[in-house]
């Protein structure tokens, strides 16, 4: 029952995860796609349940949270699979550039340890296609950012859709 109620969030969350792999959409993934996915999850929920009078605050939060979490899990999983297949990813490709940049700004010594970790990660990915550290980082990073933007989209969606419903009722 609960799963059925929140199924739109699962669908839109998965859609974001897939879209976030496409280069053009990649950068937009969090700022625009995740909030939009939460909005559409609520929109589809209202379409499936036309009898719903208003979206409650708790429901909007739950939809936003779930969309964000689903998007984060699938996006991380797909990212890890692609990294495993290609043995590289955006982060690995940007590392030489970042390390050069830090040297340029004379911060190489300050971030020596951090770059050591990143270099181990790079080595693991290039050799085996998998790094436990990268997996932990990508899941944590996606969960943090996607859930926040999902919640934001849920709140905005609730306000917009409730307003629309009130206007239609008048």
């Amino acid at each position, binding site marked *: 029952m609960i799963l059925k109620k929140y199924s739109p969030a699962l669908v839109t969350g998965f859609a974001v995860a897939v879209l*976030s792999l496409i280069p053009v959409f*990649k*950068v937009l*993934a*969090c*700022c625009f796609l995740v909030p939009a996915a939460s909005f559409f999850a609520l929109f589809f929920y209202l379409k499936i349940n036309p009898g719903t009078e208003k979206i409650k*605050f708790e429901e909007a939060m739950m939809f936003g949270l779930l969309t964000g979490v689903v998007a984060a899990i699938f996006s991380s999983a797909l990212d890890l699979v692609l990294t495993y297949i290609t043995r590289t990813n*955006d*982060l690995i490709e*940007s590392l030489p*550039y*970042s390390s050069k*940049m830090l040297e340029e*700004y*004379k*911060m190489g010594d*300050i*971030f020596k*340890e*951090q770059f050591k*970790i*990143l270099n181990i*990660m790079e080595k693991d990915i290039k050799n085996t296609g998998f790094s436990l*550290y*990268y997996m932990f*980082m*990508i899941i*944590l*990073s*996606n969960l*943090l*950012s996607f859930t*926040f933007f999902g919640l*934001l989209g849920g*709140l*905005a969606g*609730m*306000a*917009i859709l*409730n*307003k629309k419903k*009130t206007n239609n009722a008048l």
Partner: protein
Amino acid sequence: MDKQKLFYFTLIFICLFLFFWLIGISSLVFFRDFPIINNLLPLSKITFSKFCHQNINKTIILNGAPFLVCSRCLGIYSGSFIFSILMIIFYKKNITLKLKWLIIALLFIIADIIFYNLNFYNYSKTIAFVTGFFLGSIFISYINSQIKNYFVQ
């Protein structure tokens, strides 16, 4: 919990998130002497690379170090953060913002991108920051006014 309090806590939550977000973005600039924040550099790098191209030529350099996102993104996040504080301070004031303002703010950014790509002028970090700041402030104010509408109704 009554609706007024819930609304207030929602604003605080958004503001706090943006605060930590900005700490992450400016970790190289302001917090290079803080080992705890420095240790989070790999995580920050992974996180922000998802939001921004992080092109160093389009990044503001301050205190001898770059921010972890480009000038436009920095503008968006700082505008959102500053206005989220204002929203908390003036949460009792009834400020309503229409969608058209959000579209106008977006149009400024699109116009800037088109103009410098067509070589009307060179890429300017200041213009990128200002247009980003405008969008960020409008975006957070719009979200605030929409949420408030719900809580007031």
